[in-house]
């Protein structure tokens, strides 16, 4: 947090920052940054990088809109949001290629983990249809976990649990 504050004050000395420190170890710190009445909230929790949101909005208890690794990138994002009075929003669905790029994983690295050729990864990213198991492998190779959720018009949303290979009901 100290590093972030130092870097922000160098980049944008006219911004005012209020620090709402966590009282428990491992809990979120909130840094409320204001420039000409445009506010950006930065959340920090040990091991979670920086969470950045410019839109407080009505969402009680909502997490940060964007999560950014590293002090320099986080400060650059905050400066951009403040100077251009931009707003962040709830993350939207992404194409697989963009998700991989956002996670900082190259096609070559993904291909190595999946033990396939790089051109297979490229083809996979252009596909409109997937086996659930293939998609799960790709997400897990990026360090994530695949969840598939069914949403219904009455507001009910349920995650689907797939039967394990060879398991009988």
């Amino acid at each position: 947090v100290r590093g972030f504050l130092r870097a922000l004050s160098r980049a944008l000395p006219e911004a005012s920052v209020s620090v709402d420190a966590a009282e428990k170890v491992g809990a979120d710190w909130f840094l409320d940054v204001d420039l000409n009445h445009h506010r950006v909230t930065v959340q920090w929790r040990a091991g979670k990088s920086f969470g950045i949101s410019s839109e407080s909005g009505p969402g009680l208890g909502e997490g940060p809109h964007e999560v950014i690794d590293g002090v320099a990138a986080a400060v650059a994002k905050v400066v951009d949001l403040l100077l251009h009075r931009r707003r962040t929003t709830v993350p939207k669905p992404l194409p697989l290629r963009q998700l991989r790029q956002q996670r900082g994983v190259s096609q070559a690295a993904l291909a190595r983990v999946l033990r396939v050729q790089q051109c297979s990864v490229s083809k996979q990213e252009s596909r409109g249809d997937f086996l659930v198991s293939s998609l799960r492998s790709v997400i897990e190779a990026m360090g994530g976990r695949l969840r598939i959720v069914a949403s219904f018009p009455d507001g009910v949303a349920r995650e689907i649990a797939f039967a394990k290979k060879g398991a009988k009901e």
Partner: protein
Amino acid sequence: MLHSAEGMADRIHKQRRLSEFFRRLLASPPSNSGTEAMKLISDTLNAVEDELSGVPFHPDLWQSDGRMYPPRSDSKRSVPGHADVVRFRSRGHNVFVGRNGAIRILAAATPPESGPVLFEKLGADGRPLPRLTKDTGDRS
């Protein structure tokens, strides 16, 4: 500071859910203690979001999934000069809860007690939370 059409629709939908949460919270019997008040907040908000958000309950996610979540217990902060009140901070709000079960929800601001009051509920003793703005020394 323009919102996209999609962003605006999301904001309106969430505002409706928040209003429904406030409506149900206000209609519930008052709480006898801070612990009871926190349980009431959690149960009421989770019920509203289960019914209306269309987003599954995943409180372990740090990044926003578009669902509203009750205050996390580790977000608790003490309120200077008010030992009988605690504050729970989230990105856009401060939830103040009294030992008597009274609740006050404010939009996040600096200082925290200066934000616009969005919701207020008395405790079971019929009393609201005390005035929390910083003491100016004016005793008149």
